[in-house]
Each structure stands twice: as structure tokens, then as C-alpha cells.
């Protein structure tokens, strides 16, 4: 698997500081010439972004509507964390690495520094690495710099490309589905994203097609004082199947950078979408300085009967995480799943969970959430399970476990359960506990050192979630947790 370099490239810094608590290994900055929009947000900027992308007129009109709506909204503060106010006028809303020549072209026209940056991250964007089994769309700051395997996928009728390209080549499809799951009026950050989103992936699996390889997008924030506003739209037509992976990193900086993404998934009859995320944005240093503010709206809609959407997430980065991947179970017999591991260390604050909205008959949902808090971090699970009156015989099982490592962190659980149909069956259970001293002692007596013992126990704790991840992602997730936990236990 080509994921290998992920570990390899980061060997040197890792070895050196092995014991100095969870060093962030993707914290490098790549110096590239960038095409940078002026700071600030106004209609001109929205027009500029739309112009840069050569978007159709209706798209600009939609963006402007979203922008005007956003201006009427106020930032929400109900989540369980505190942060310094975000200066929305102090951000560059567009930053793109300069191409050697204008106009569409292959990867050779991308600044080699950018390609090298992705190589360091272990993301195969260059041609020779395209043999791997994963098709990748690599997003660098505001734009997509390369998408692999497009031709092979086209043979199946699968469209996998940057959303800005889709807007030019398949405007009808984008227009039909964009904003149909997360309307721009949905919330403050979704409105902001709708106005200024710059890139992201578009993925369309036609009727009856099982996508033969995993699709993946890798997001990289590079430029300073920018925000990343990506938009991902995945549509699985009748009987289609796709597994989609998402990864993210950013340089280490003292400033807080904003990441406000919107992801929309649409599954029609008998379709299945599996969406996996390993989120490893820079989380700030030990004292909580710097890091990404991750305010993300992710929502899937099981529009067809017997469809399935499954979210798997490993949240290990970001100074602040505000993220509730949701599934609207509209089609009868549809299934929603949510598997999550959220690890917080240093002074990270995570308020994450899911929403399962049952509307169709015999809809089922499963929620498995594992939270691990260490150092002085704050980890919150917040979830909603709603059974609407129309959801006959709906079924939900939820389980939220939290583990506390150290006595300065906190773990919170806020589940909301709303049942409006008597034929529903719901089970919810949650627990919070300390890492078991007896288990550590047992492993130590078998010759493991404390860190290895803790790592093994945490792995066991998260196993139910990791086994939902595609194999190479699972390996990466395990390594990521080990790295994050280093030095945080004593």
C-alpha cells in the first residue's frame, strides 16, 4: 500500500523526540508562490472566488444568497468549549499555489514544491504512484492540485473530481444535489462555507456500480492567515457503493486557523456510502497556542429505500472540534451508522457526536463513540437520536464510552433522545472510567512497559471503531493514537 511513506517520511523528527509527548509530525510548512486573495470577506471576495473558478452564473447567485444570509446570522456558542473570537475579516478566503502556466493541465504544471509536500505526507499525487489502490484528490489550501485514477474510474461511469471541475463539466448534477442535504440556511458555518467554499471533492457513482477502489481526498492547509472552506458532495445512485476516505493536516503555527467544511452525502435506493475520516489538523502546542478551529457540518441522507450511510471518524487533531456527522434516514429500511474515536490531548477541546434522524419505516441506526481525554483537554460527546412519528419500528443502539487519562482533563456526554413513535426501540448506554490500573499492571508483569501497555489498552478500547476503517487507514489511526498518547501518561 502506498500509505507507507506516511510513516517513513516522518521518521526523523519522530525518532528524535520520541518521548516528548505527541509531537505533531505534519507541522512543516511548504514555501510556494501563492495566488492570494486580499484579506476580508465581502461580496467582492465571493465574486472573486466564483470568478477564479469560472463558475456558472447560478452558482454565484447561490453563493451571494448564502453570503447575505450569513450576514444576518450570529456565531453559535452553545457548544461545550471556549475560544477567542474569530476575526472573519482577518482571513484570506482564497489561497492557491500558482501554476506554472494558466489554463488546465496535468500535474506537471503544479509547483513541484506542492507535489513534494504531498510526498512528505505520503499522498500519492504524482503519476508514477498512481498504481496504488486508492484514487486521491489532493486539496492544497483553496484548490485541488491533482486527482488520480480519473480515467479508470470514468470507465465505470464514476465521476471523481474537484468540485470546481464538476461545476464546469457536470453543472446539472451539482445543481441538482448541492445544498439539498445541508442548505445554506442550515447554520452559521454552513452559510459561511456556502458563500466562500473554494474546493473539495465531487463524487458520483452511477446506478448499479460498485466503486472498485477507495476514493480519497487529502486536505492540506499550508498558507498562513487563511481559512479552508471545502465542500464535498457524494452521490450514490440506485444500488451503488462507494468507500470514501478523508485525511487532513496543517503546519504548526501560533495563530488559530479556521476550517469550515460542508460534506453532503446522498444515497438512493439500495445504495451504500461509507465515509471515513482521519482528522489530524494541527491541534496547538502544550499551552493551547495555535491550532485549527474545525467547525464542520457533515450530513448524509438515506434518500432511497434500503440505503445505508456509515460515518467512521478518528478525531485526533484540531484545537477545537465542532462536528456532528448526521444521517437522515428517510428511505424505508435504511441504515445509519456512526463510529467515532475522539482523542484530545494538551488543551484541545472537542464537542463531537452524531445525529440520527429516523423518518422512514424500519430504519436502523448504530452509534459507537469512544472518547479519550488526556492532559488538560476537554472531550464532549453530543448526540441526537430522533424518531419521528412516521418512523414505524425504528431501532437505535448507542454506546458512548469515555476514558480519562490524567486528572486535569474532562469527559462529558450529552445524548438527546427524542421518541415520537411508540413502536421504536432504543437503547443507549454510556460509561466514563479511568484506564484500569489492574490491566496496566498485568501487562507490565508480562514485560510491557507502561506506554506499550496503555497503548494496547487504548487500542482494545477503540477496537470496535478501528475495525470499521479500511485497513491502511486503521493502521494509520493506531499509529496516530500511539503518537498522540506518548508522554501524556505517567
Amino acid at each position, binding site marked *: 500500500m502506498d500509505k507507507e511513506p506516511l510513516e517513513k517520511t516522518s521518521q526523523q523528527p519522530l525518532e528524535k523526540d520520541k518521548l516528548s509527548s505527541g509531537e505533531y509530525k505534519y507541522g512543516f510548512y511548504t514555501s510556494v508562490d501563492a495566488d492570494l486573495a486580499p484579506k476580508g470577506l465581502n461580496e467582492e471576495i465571493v465574486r472573486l472566488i466564483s470568478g477564479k473558478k469560472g463558475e456558472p452564473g447560478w452558482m454565484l447567485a447561490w453563493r451571494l444568497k448564502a453570503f447575505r444570509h450569513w450576514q444576518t446570522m450570529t456565531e453559535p456558542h*452553545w457548544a461545550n468549549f471556549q475560544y477567542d473570537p474569530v476575526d472573519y475579516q482577518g482571513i484570506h478566503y482564497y489561497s492557491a499555489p500558482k501554476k506554472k502556466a494558466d489554463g488546465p493541465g496535468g500535474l506537471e504544471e503544479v509547483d513541484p514544491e506542492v507535489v513534494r509536500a504531498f510526498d512528505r505526507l505520503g499522498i500519492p499525487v504524482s503519476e508514477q504512484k498512481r498504481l496504488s489502490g486508492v484514487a486521491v484528490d489532493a486539496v492544497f489550501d483553496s484548490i485541488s492540485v491533482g486527482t488520480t485514477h480519473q480515467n479508470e474510474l470514468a470507465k465505470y461511469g464514476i465521476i471523481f473530481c474537484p468540485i470546481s471541475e464538476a461545476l464546469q463539466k457536470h453543472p446539472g448534477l451539482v445543481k441538482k444535489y448541492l445544498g439539498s442535504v445541508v442548505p445554506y440556511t442550515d447554520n452559521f458555518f454552513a452559510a459561511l462555507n456556502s458563500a466562500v467554499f473554494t474546493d473539495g471533492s465531487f463524487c458520483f457513482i452511477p446506478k448499479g456500480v460498485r466503486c472498485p477502489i477507495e476514493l480519497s481526498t487529502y486536505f492540506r492547509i499550508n498558507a498562513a492567515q487563511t481559512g479552508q472552506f471545502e465542500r464535498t458532495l457524494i452521490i450514490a445512485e440506485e444500488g451503488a457503493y462507494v468507500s470514501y476516505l478523508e485525511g487532513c493536516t496543517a503546519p504548526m503555527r501560533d495563530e488559530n486557523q479556521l476550517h469550515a467544511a460542508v460534506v453532503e452525502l446522498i444515497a438512493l435506493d439500495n445504495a451504500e456510502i461509507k465515509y471515513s475520516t482521519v482528522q489530524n489538523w494541527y491541534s496547538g502546542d502544550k499551552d493551547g497556542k495555535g491550532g485549527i478551529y474545525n467547525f464542520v457540518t457533515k450530513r448524509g441522507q438515506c434518500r432511497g429505500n434500503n440505503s445505508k450511510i456509515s460515518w467512521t471518524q478518528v478525531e485526533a487533531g484540531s484545537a477545537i472540534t465542532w462536528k456532528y456527522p448526521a444521517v437522515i434516514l428517510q428511505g424505508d429500511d435504511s441504515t445509519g451508522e456512526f463510529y467515532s474515536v475522539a482523542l484530545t490531548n494538551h488543551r484541545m477541546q472537542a464537542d463531537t457526536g452524531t445525529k440520527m434522524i429516523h423518518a422512514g419505516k424500519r430504519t436502523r441506526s448504530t452509534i459507537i463513540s469512544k472518547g479519550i481525554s488526556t492532559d488538560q483537554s476537554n472531550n464532549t460527546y453530543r448526540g441526537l437520536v430522533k424518531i419521528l*412519528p412516521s418512523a414505524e419500528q425504528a431501532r437505535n443502539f448507542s454506546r458512548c464510552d*469515555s476514558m*480519562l*487519562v*490524567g*486528572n*486535569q*482533563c*474532562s*469527559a*462529558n*456526554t*450529552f*445524548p*438527546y*433522545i*427524542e*421518541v*415520537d413513535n*411508540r*413502536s*421504536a*426501540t*432504543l*437503547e*443507549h*448506554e*454510556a*460509561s*466514563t*472510567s*479511568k484506564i484500569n490500573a489492574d490491566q496496566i499492571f498485568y501487562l507490565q508483569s508480562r514485560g510491557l512497559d507502561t506506554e506499550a501497555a496503555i497503548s494496547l489498552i487504548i487500542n482494545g478500547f477503540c477496537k470496535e471503531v478501528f475495525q470499521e476503517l479500511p485497513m491502511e487507514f486503521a493502521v494509520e489511526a493506531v499509529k496516530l493514537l500511539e503518537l498522540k498518547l506518548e508522554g501524556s501518561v505517567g
Partner: protein
Amino acid sequence: MPSKTSTDSQFMARLGEIRKASETEGPAWLLPKKEAAWNAAVSKGFPTRKDDEWRYTDLSPLFSLPVVASRADGGPEGRKSGDKFLAPEDIAVVIANGRLPEELPVIPDEAKGLTLKKFSAVSEEEFRNWLAPDFSQPTDLFSGLNTALNYDGLWIHVPAQLQVKPVIHLCHVASEATAVNVFCPRVIVTAEPRAEARILMTFSSASGAAASFTNALTDITLGFGAKISLAVIQDESHENFYIHSARVTQHKDSSFDSFILTTGSRLSRNNLAVTLLGERAETLLKGLSLLQGDRRADHLTAVNHIAANGTSNQLYKGILNGQSRVVFNGKIYVHPDAQQTNAYQLNKNLLMGDHCRVNTKPQLEIFADDVKCSHGATVGQMDPNEVFYLQSRGVPQKTAVAMLAKGFVDEMFPQARDSVLERFLLTVNPLLGAVAH
């Protein structure tokens, strides 16, 4: 204060008229408190569904309740309506229409040392020693209104080492022969070290009583090693609104348990806040809601573990018929110093009616690492296979359903029956029989 709807401010204005009637009543130490509580309540205003703690309960039906500010208490005839709960061996205080009787009961010899006193008879010194902390607690709107509108409160004091054998029964009745319809009974219980007592509170209405609003406030403080058990039966008429806030403070090694049965009132809300201030304190909170028609019950519990080695257990169950609705919002908060806390919470709901609704929101907020905390919630219906099995053994369908409903609630009732439990079953059994209909 931004005006929300005109009706809630109009309701507040109507309560203001009641306040005028009781403004100058009570001992000197209480008057400034009432004044301050009223001003705070007015500036705070009623909560709306935007407040997270009132997310699932809409108070607006309450605002259309006509408020009558008469001072009549219904006389001896009215007092009889709570008779079914009275037992001769109890120390019983009948609180009719929110007003204490002229004479408090004589304390029997076996409970010598126990003090029951009206606030109006409490001296300045007693107030400072025992009651002051409860009056300086931060209040929500309804406990503030209770202080402001209460005519006279009851102080129950259990001295050190005393084990009060008889049940202290506070029998609240809304009687027909009255024009008053806003009741604000207030009780403060203070238990000195190693004292023990059982308190039963019943709330019922006489048939034909006007629609009323009960806004009760109960404060309980448990000294070192003290043991208090609180049982509440709320069986008011369907027209009523009922809000009961109970605040419990537990010192070292104390043990508190409560059992709240909710069957009546179109809207009932139980706020129960327990603070485990001392080490090794134990808390057991139980709640059972048996609801019919369009009744709504809303339970808010907040268990605050401040000190180490505390244990808390919560078990709340509901059986819902018709279009009834139950809300459970349970909060467990574990302070950083509360190491080795064990805190559990379980909420189970059985849906019988076609249009009944459940909202449950168990919350854990944990700031200490060496703890064991868990919560669980289930919502489901009766298993048709179980009903079928019983039917196949010759049990009629309705009886089978009633049997299974009884099985569902049985774990809440311990095997050892006492006089308090008997009174619970007196209310519960007929309702379980009616579940199948």
C-alpha cells in the same frame, strides 16, 4: 428583560397580585428575602424552550391559568380530600391549598426531640443557625417565586442521634371549597449528625377543585452520617400544574434516598438537585411516571459530586399511555476533587399509547479521572411474544399486559413493604390495571 410573549408577563403580573396579599406576612427575617426573591423573579422572567433545561416542556399552557388571590383555606371539609393517604400512626401535617394548619401536630414520645415549626415561629437565631444557607442558595425562577409567594413555611429539625420511627407525612391537598389556586408550600428539613427520618409528601386534589398551580420548594440538609428518605406521591387532578424543586445537601457519610411517583397533573416538573458535599455520601434517586391522556411529566435531576468516594444511583422509569409525554434530563457532575466516585443513572420507558412521546437526555460531566460513571436509557414497547406466551397459558390479554407492566415497575419496589410503600401501591396498582385499556 426582553418581553417574550405577552401572556407570560401577564401571568407574572397576576402572581404579583397574590404577592400583595402575602407581602407583609411572615417573620421579620423573612420579609427582605421575599422582596429580593420577587424582584429577581420578575427580572428573570419565565424560561422558554430555548433554555436547555426547558427544551422539551412548553410552559405556555400555565400562563393561561386564571389566578385567584383569595386567602381562604377551605376549612376542615377541604382538608379531608387527602384522607386516602393518611395513616393514624404518622406525624401528619395537612397542608390545604398551600397553607399550614393553625396547629401543628403534637410530637409523640417515640420521636421526642423532633421539631416541627412554622417559619413565623422561627427565631432570628434559629434562622441564622439552620435556615440561612437555604435562603442564600442560587435559585431558579420557580424556587424564587416560591420564596416570594409563600405564606408560611415549615421547618423540620431532627436532632443528633434521633431516629424518628413514625413517618412524617406532609399531606398537600387542593380542596374544592376555596378560591385560591396558586400554592407555594415550602419545607426545610435539617438533620443533625446521625439523625434519621422518613418523609412522605403527598399531593392530591379533591374532586371538583378548581385548576391550580402547585409550586413547591423543599430543602434538605443532611449532617454527618444522617439518613433521610423522601417519598413523593403526586396524584393531583388532571387540570393542575405542578412544579416541585427539591435541593439536597449531603455532608460526610450521609445517606439520602428519594422516590417520586408522578401520575397526575397535566404538566408536572420535578427538579431534584443533590450535592454530595462530604466524602462517602450516598444517594439513591428513584422516579416512576405512570401517565395517561395528555399528561406530561418532566424530571430534571442534577447530582453534584463535590467530594471523594461518593456513590449515586438514579433509576427512573415511565409507562406512557395515550398521548402522554415524559422527559428525563439527568445530570451527573463530578468535580475534580471527587475521586473514586461511583455514579449511575438508568432511564427506562415503556410506550403503550399510540401518540406518546419520550425525550431523554442523560448527561455526564466528569472532571475527575478515577471514577466509574455510567448511564443507560431505553425506550421500547411491550414484547408481543411475552404477551402471547401468557395468553397461550390462558391469561386474558388485558391481564397479561397488566402483569407485564407490573413486572416492569416491580424492581422499584423493594420486597420489604412498609407503610410508605403501601401508599405508593395504593396509587400504582389501579393504574397498572388500567394500562391495558
